[in-house]
């Protein structure tokens, strides 16, 4: 699957890249600055940035001297929406279970015993 979401997920599957994104949430910054917290060469960081850029998760400035990176949240929103249906599905089932458990609890109370007839 090389669709858009798969590219996003691939980009997000790495802790360094997630850390880079987390840093960029606070504002745009230069590659050298981004590399600082990681024990990693600049080319290695640049490689991560290319993956993020390909996934559309970051944008890079045009200036050759100082190409600041900025986060682009749109693909993240797509990821959130993507799992939303799954979340909703189970949320509904578990809400049902919670309501049903209250019935079971009430029954157990009136029976005054853990053993309930078939």
């Amino acid at each position, binding site marked *: 699957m090389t669709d858009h979401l798969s590219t996003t997920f691939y980009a997000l599957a790495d802790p360094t890249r997630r850390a880079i994104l987390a840093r960029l949430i606070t504002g745009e910054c230069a590659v050298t600055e981004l590399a600082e917290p990681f024990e990693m060469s600049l080319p290695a960081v640049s490689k991560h940035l290319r993956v993020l850029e390909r996934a559309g998760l970051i944008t890079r400035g045009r200036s050759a001297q100082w190409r600041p990176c900025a986060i682009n949240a749109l693909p993240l929103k797509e990821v959130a929406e993507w799992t939303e249906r799954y979340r909703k599905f189970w949320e509904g089932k578990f809400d049902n279970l919670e309501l049903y458990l209250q019935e079971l*609890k009430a029954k157990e109370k009136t029976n005054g015993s853990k053993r309930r007839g078939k």
Partner: protein
Amino acid sequence: MAASGVANSETFTVTTPSDTEIQLTRLFDAPRHLVFEAMSKPEHIKRWWGNLGDGYSVPVCEVDLRIGGKWRFVNRHPKGEAEFYGEYREIDPPGRIVFTEIYAPFPDAPSVVTATLADENGKTRLVATSNYPSKMVRDMVLQTGMEKGAAKSYDRLDEVSMQLATSR
């Protein structure tokens, strides 16, 4: 605040602890033995699993609650039926149950579900972790979202199954 208005709804989370897993957690306002029963006895399962409103029912709900015993649920919905089955691997009431789960159209993609029930001051925290055979299958399950109106997801499943078949 619980969006649905149902107790503890806000405690529900979906996470992906690894590339091949989906983890669901939720707190229930009931002791562990009741939650365990509700999850493992057909007469209870029928009442909450797949019962999502008008046009939904669970016509088949078979549980042979023994290690190696089989289970099979069919969820009837307005657009058709969805069948799931599997086998129990570990049964340790009221704290733990492990079973395999297969969605009938994809018999080659079984998941292993580990459900643990922990007591929290009389309430029960359920952690259910489904482990899929590959990241692709896991992503497929997340993507289809097991939608209520399953028609759309079946379309997507078809697409993905073709991709799965050609990638082998």
